[in-house]
């Protein structure tokens, strides 16, 4: 395979369960050394797509090729070259931290000496060397996640699949995971991840597809998506209900677009400070006003009309 040959290609990929369509004809390609993200709310079809790529869920219709092979017929050969970090931890609680890595290496038929060396390096990498001989159970959620990431690297995978890698972690643990994943990316790893945290997508992904209800509704780099679908800045205003109408009339002239959310109004404009000044000059004083840059969250809201996390 040449450098530019995509590692994963999907065309019209579809997944149906009985009478529910989880993935509805999606197409994408993941290239070597790329960080590719599926961004979308729960139920968007991200995990189903990952499971098909991971060869643990049959494709209903359409085409999927991983390393040029069909998951239906070459599952073991594909899985030998993938690293998988699942959404729910599934470490072996009955053996130690280090044994988890050694045992997993056995499943890949990695010789014992090689496995031992890699296990030590990986424990170092995820900062768990001191816990090598500890049981898994007492580890914190963030440590378990890091161990799972180390485990996914034991076979030196060409693509690492991460399904919601930081969901359920506290912010500090989340940043530790992002830091490790960023280092992997720096080393040229190919990452494929799903997330419903726009911040995660912005931090880690070179390219994202935005999914909603089984479909891909936009694709591009986080920056280009923001440029294409949102304004540079956003002004978030909280105002008493009584003056919402007046404010809307006022803002219509200065803003490109307004989103009315139950608890606040979001004003999309290239220069939020300027818009805020104009509002204040007109004699309207919001309870709170926040100026911020546009994020993928705004892109998602614009495209779907609903928020990423309810």
């Amino acid at each position: 395979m040449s450098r530019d040959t995509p590692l994963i290609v999907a065309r019209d990929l579809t997944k149906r369960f009985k009478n529910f369509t989880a993935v509805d004809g999606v197409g994408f390609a993941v290239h070597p050394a790329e960080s590719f993200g599926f961004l979308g709310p729960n139920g968007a079809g991200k995990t189903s797509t990952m499971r098909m790529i991971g060869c643990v869920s049959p494709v209903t219709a359409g085409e999927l090729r991983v390393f040029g092979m069909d998951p239906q017929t070459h599952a073991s050969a594909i899985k030998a070259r993938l690293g998988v970090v699942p959404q729910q931890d599934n470490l072996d609680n009955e053996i130690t931290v280090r044994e988890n890595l050694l045992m997993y290496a056995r499943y890949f038929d990695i010789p014992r000496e090689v496995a031992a060396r890699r296990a030590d390096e990986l424990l170092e990498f995820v900062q768990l060397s001191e816990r090598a001989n500890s049981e898994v159970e007492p580890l914190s959620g963030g440590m378990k996640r890091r161990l799972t990431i180390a485990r996914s690297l034991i076979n030196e995978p060409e693509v690492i699949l991460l399904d919601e890698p930081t969901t359920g972690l506290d912010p500090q643990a989340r940043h530790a995971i992002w830091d490790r994943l960023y280092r992997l990316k720096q080393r040229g790893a190919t990452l494929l991840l799903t997330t419903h945290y726009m911040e995660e997508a912005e931090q880690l992904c070179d390219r994202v597809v935005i999914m909603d209800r089984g479909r891909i509704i936009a694709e591009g780099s986080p920056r280009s998506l923001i440029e294409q679908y949102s304004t540079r800045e956003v002004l978030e205003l909280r105002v008493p209900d009584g003056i919402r109408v007046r404010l809307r009339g006022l803002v219509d002239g200065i803003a490109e677009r307004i989103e009315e959310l139950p608890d606040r109004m979001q004003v999309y404009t290239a220069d939020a400070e300027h818009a805020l000044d104009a509002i204040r000059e007109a004699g309207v004083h919001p309870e709170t006003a926040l100026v911020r840059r546009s994020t993928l969250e705004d892109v998602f809201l614009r495209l779907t009309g609903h928020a990423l996390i309810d």
Partner: protein
Amino acid sequence: MTRAQRIVQRNAVVYRRIWRGSVFSSFLQPTLYLMSLGLGVGSLIDPRRAASIAGGDSYLQFLAPGLLAAACMQVASFESAWPVIGKIVWRRNYHAMLATPLAIDDLIVGELLWLAVRLTTVGTAFMLVASAFGAMRIAPATLLAVLLAVVTGLAFSAPIVAYAATLKSGDNFNIVFRLIITPLFMFSGVFFPVDRLPAPVQWIAEASPLYHGVQLVRGLTLGHLAPSVAIMHLVYLLGLFLAGFLAARYTFRRTLYA
């Protein structure tokens, strides 16, 4: 096959940590039955009468091979159910394994291979203890009987593994254990010949896989097993094993490859 061996290796590593907990159910319990019923109740039974109804020189010798088969059934039932439910629902080990080159068939074959290893150790240990009591003789036929007890256990394992893969919790399996395994243990000819039972109950008993296992193991141990009868019993047990194995391939796929 080599990939299925990985499951055996994994279970062996884990078992090294937890074996103490399983010693009672798998080994001490049948030994206690052997002592209390074989030596205790057996002393109340006239040896000539025991020999005429059952073969063997004493009730103890009648009981021991039955308990050998029953011990394998019980260990097989427990260790086919809980670990499988755990690896699917509670700890999700199978999900982790399926992210490697291991395939679903490797999981099933590996689990059954491991059970064969476990049952062989349980059966051998029981046989040695029974020999120490004079309840069995260490002889080639007895060793073969241990193997047949393992086959009996596996005939239970395969369908139970298949069933366990459909469960979301262990509650249902508790019912299976109380309603199926325990009555089979009592009424499949382990403690007394089934022809002592009223006719309809006797038919039910003779349909039970444990009955066929007990007949095989006892017949071989006491030296009165006719080859034609042996084949019939074996075909029954292997048929159940095969049916269970095919069912497991179906239920594992439905649960783990959806």
